[in-house]
């Protein structure tokens, strides 16, 4: 293998598993250390720069970072049992938001004089808000349009308040508009052609995926009064138009919307609320913690049941029948659900909430304005990197771009679209993306002193305290999760392995004494004769079988061998550097941050 090029910002970025997995590449370990030091405001600002909505995301994020976290690969089963759990990255973000001081003085402001460029954002959800913030800071004049009276998109209209209090939404919307140069107008856009005819330098479409899928099975029309489309029902609850539900409720669907529907139903008078899914429990789209939270509210989840018919008596919905199915997999591993032949179960109900998927809908975009749509999916053709449509002035992001995702993806798209818009108006090549900023600092302070806490904790993940069940169910907007207090937050933060403090190897200094090999608790280091990657991976002190994780190769040793470090399970404990007599190993902090519009 060739020697590793550690000047490539992606090399060490990938080692920070959580940051690499985060769509907005939030510098996770840096903010976790700041939380451990009680520097909540600084931790908040690092988040705010990267993901714009730390208080919101700290309660609601889909957290792609957590399954990627190194701790899931290294925890000691004799301490944690079978559950090797990630650091509670998401809930620590909330800690920063909960305990920060007044940060308004730390927020950037739009320049006094604007640059005269005018941008329209259609839809005022997280994607548009991110575009607005990034561009306003640079002097752009941004106008947000939304059919709803307030900013926030689905953050405001869909996510139940027992998960996300309104005050948190209001606060973080304020931080964005306080930048200046951001106007909000309530307006339902019914023609993109019309908007194009207005005087905008660029248009960003962040209208989300607003349409909930329906279920056309027998009885649908007769029972219509008691069948509700999940996302519409949730927004009606949010706006106060709906405040009761029947005692017996069926929620169809296994995604996050279904979980919000069932928990909301429990709070509006639903006494027996059941979630019924076609797939198996394990394959449900909802995140595991959302399933846990629903089940903790006495909501059973019944699986492998396909809806067959709604039953109506005296003009009222009384129940549903289902077909029981099982999963079968073909040679290619594709699943099909086949009927088991068991008698069809019948489940009584007063109301049904249908949460079986969300779709995009662009009836307001004319198909003759030079903006190409994909014929098969009826989705606009959008570049994955630049987020530009085939109409050079029109950009898409968030759920509107590639279908329903989540808030953190919306923010990531927003950043990328802002870069593209700026490049477009500067006449630069949109494909030429700015490299991340990289700041490298050795952490060595003394012979055995490092400026980070390298003592590895074996504690299992700490649980976030919850409000008592009865109290939660009695109040629609009482937040269920109470958040970590500072003591718990400190303990949880200490579980982080500081994966951004990198092991950096200087072959020229190495005398091959093996001290690092011997001390490494994870058997990560080997001195070996070089070879092809496949072969080398099997010849290491411990075989490197996780091909997603790189091998770090150092060349130029006295014996002609190479130093091979498997990044997979390194604890970043720094013992290799402590035991190295020549300083060939050093622990260096790689602070890597995405370049946002205006920073390049």
């Amino acid at each position, binding site marked *: 293998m060739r020697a590793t090029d550690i000047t490539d910002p992606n090399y060490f970025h990938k080692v920070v598993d959580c940051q690499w997995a985060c769509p907005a590449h939030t510098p996770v370990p840096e903010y976790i250390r700041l939380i451990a030091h009680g520097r909540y405001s600084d931790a908040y600002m690092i988040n705010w720069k990267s993901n714009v909505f730390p208080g919101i995301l700290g309660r609601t994020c889909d957290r792609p970072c957590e399954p990627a976290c190194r701790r899931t690969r290294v925890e000691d089963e004799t301490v944690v049992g079978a559950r090797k759990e990630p650091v509670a990255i998401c809930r620590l973000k909330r800690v920063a938001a909960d305990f920060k001081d007044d940060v308004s003085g730390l927020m950037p402001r739009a320049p006094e004089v604007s640059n005269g460029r005018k941008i329209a954002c259609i839809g005022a959800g997280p994607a548009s808000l991110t575009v607005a913030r990034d561009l306003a800071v640079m002097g752009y004049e941004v106008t947000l349009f939304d059919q709803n009276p307030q900013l926030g998109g689905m953050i405001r209209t869909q996510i139940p308040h027992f998960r996300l209090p309104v005050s948190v939404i209001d606060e973080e919307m304020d931080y964005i508009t306080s930048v200046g140069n951001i106007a909000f107008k309530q307006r339902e856009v019914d023609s993109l052609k019309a908007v194009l005819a207005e005087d905008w330098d660029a248009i960003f479409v962040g209208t989300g995926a607003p349409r909930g899928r329906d279920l056309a099975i027998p009885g649908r029309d007769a029972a219509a009064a008691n069948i509700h489309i999940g996302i519409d029902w949730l927004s009606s609850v949010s706006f106060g138009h709906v405040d009761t539900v029947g005692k017996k409720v069926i929620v169809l669907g296994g995604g996050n919307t279904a979980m919000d529907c069932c928990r909301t139903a429990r709070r509006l008078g639903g006494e027996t609320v059941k979630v019924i899914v076609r797939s198996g429990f394990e394959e449900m789209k909802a995140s595991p913690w959302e399933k846990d939270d629903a089940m903790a509210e006495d909501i059973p989840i019944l699986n492998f049941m396909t809806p067959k018919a709604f039953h109506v008596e005296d003009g009222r919905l009384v129940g549903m029948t289902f077909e029981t199915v099982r999963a079968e997999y073909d040679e290619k591993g594709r699943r099909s659900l086949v009927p088991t032949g068991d008698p069809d179960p019948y489940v009584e109900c007063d109301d049904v909430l249908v949460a079986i998927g969300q779709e995009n809908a662009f009836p307001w975009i004319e198909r003759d304005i030079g903006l190409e749509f994909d014929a098969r999916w009826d989705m606009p053709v959008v570049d994955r990197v630049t987020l530009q449509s085939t109409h050079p002035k029109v950009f898409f992001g968030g759920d509107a771009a590639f279908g329903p995702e989540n808030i953190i993806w919306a923010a990531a798209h927003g950043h990328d679209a802002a870069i593209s818009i700026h490049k477009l108006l500067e006449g630069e090549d949109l494909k030429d993306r700015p490299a991340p900023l990289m700041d490298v600092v050795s952490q060595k302070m003394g012979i055995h002193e490092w400026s980070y806490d390298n003592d590895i904790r074996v504690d299992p993940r700490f649980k976030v305290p919850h409000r008592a069940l009865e109290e939660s169910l009695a109040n629609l907007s009482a937040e269920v999760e109470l958040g970590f207090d500072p003591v718990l937050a400190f303990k949880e933060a200490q579980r982080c392995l500081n994966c951004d403090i990198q092991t950096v190897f200087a072959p020229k200094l190495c005398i091959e004494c093996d001290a690092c090999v011997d001390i490494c608790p*994870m058997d990560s280091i080997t001195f070996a004769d070089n070879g092809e990657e496949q072969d080398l991976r099997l010849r290491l002190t411990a075989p490197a079988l996780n091909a997603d994780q790189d091998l770090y190769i150092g060349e130029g040793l006295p014996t002609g061998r190479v130093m091979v470090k498997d990044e997979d399970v390194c*604890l970043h404990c720094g013992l290799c550097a402590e*035991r190295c*007599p020549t300083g060939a190993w050093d622990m260096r902090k790689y602070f890597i941050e995405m370049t946002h519009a205006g920073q390049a």
Partner: protein
Amino acid sequence: MTYLTKPKLHHPALKRNDIGFTRRDYEGAVSTLCAGCGHDSISASIVQACFELSIEPHRVAKLSGIGCSSKAPTYFLGDSHGFNTVHGRMPSVLTGANLANRELIYMGVSGDGDSASIGLGQFAHLMRRGVNMTYIVMNNGVYGLTKGQFSATADKGSVAKRGAVNNDAGIDLASLAIIMGASFVARSFSGDKGQLTPLIKAAMSHPGAAILDVVSPCVAFNNHAGSTKSYDFVRDHNAAVNRLDLIVGAEPMEADVPPGGMIEVPQVDGSNLRLRRITPDYDPSDKAGALGFIQEKAALGEVATGLLYLEPLPRDLHGALNTIPTPLNQLAEQDLCPGQAALDAINASLR
């Protein structure tokens, strides 16, 4: 030294041996030796060897003298018996322990100062008595613990860190051990675990006096140009006679014979030591040949390593003394004082 304890976490694929232990279970306290000290690598090899041999830690007794090397037993086999003797006296304490309890596996760990200077007499007598043990000398050519004075194994003409030249002849512990009657004599290098670990395994399985002279650079005081015990010097002047690949069962192995050829040496317990020849025609059972070869290499400024001498059918001290199989420390009073009648019988036999 390192202040942190080594984290308990380990590689998810860490293996267990036949008796259910991982390699980590054979570790000791975190080392307080200088970072980069060869002794730590030898400790790691001992850990690996005991793991691979599936030795129960409580069956091992590690004894040592004084010196950085003699501190090393604290850093491996944390669950075994240990005894730090006075300087140079490990052999006599070990001999006593072995006589009292022949059931333990004895490992003596010493330095070149501990063994070749103050303890040379003890060293020689242990070898000639054939005490069943593994004697590991962590040989760095200096008194590391007392800040780097030349030891008795320093080669004539080698240069100290501050420039002083050694005018005295160096003692070659491997040659001395052969002459004194050790039945397993090997030399290795702390920087070559591939060679060292199998030799430790073989030595620990050998039922007689086994000595391993392991060149082990002192990074603090003897790892400079002009030293003949530095990492660079040993790498450049290592004349390996053979590699010990494995210890195999009695049945012949299907041969995957390397270019230099193979030697299989049958052992008392019925197993075979399988050696890959590196120096053609080197015969480790030829005592005089071994001594000659070591001298020839030394004259060229090279260090002969590998399994240098092996007496396939050794006798140990207990054999020579004809002691009973039961460890002496397990004998009860009636065994030790069999009564007047037995005494009378002995007295009568001597008249």
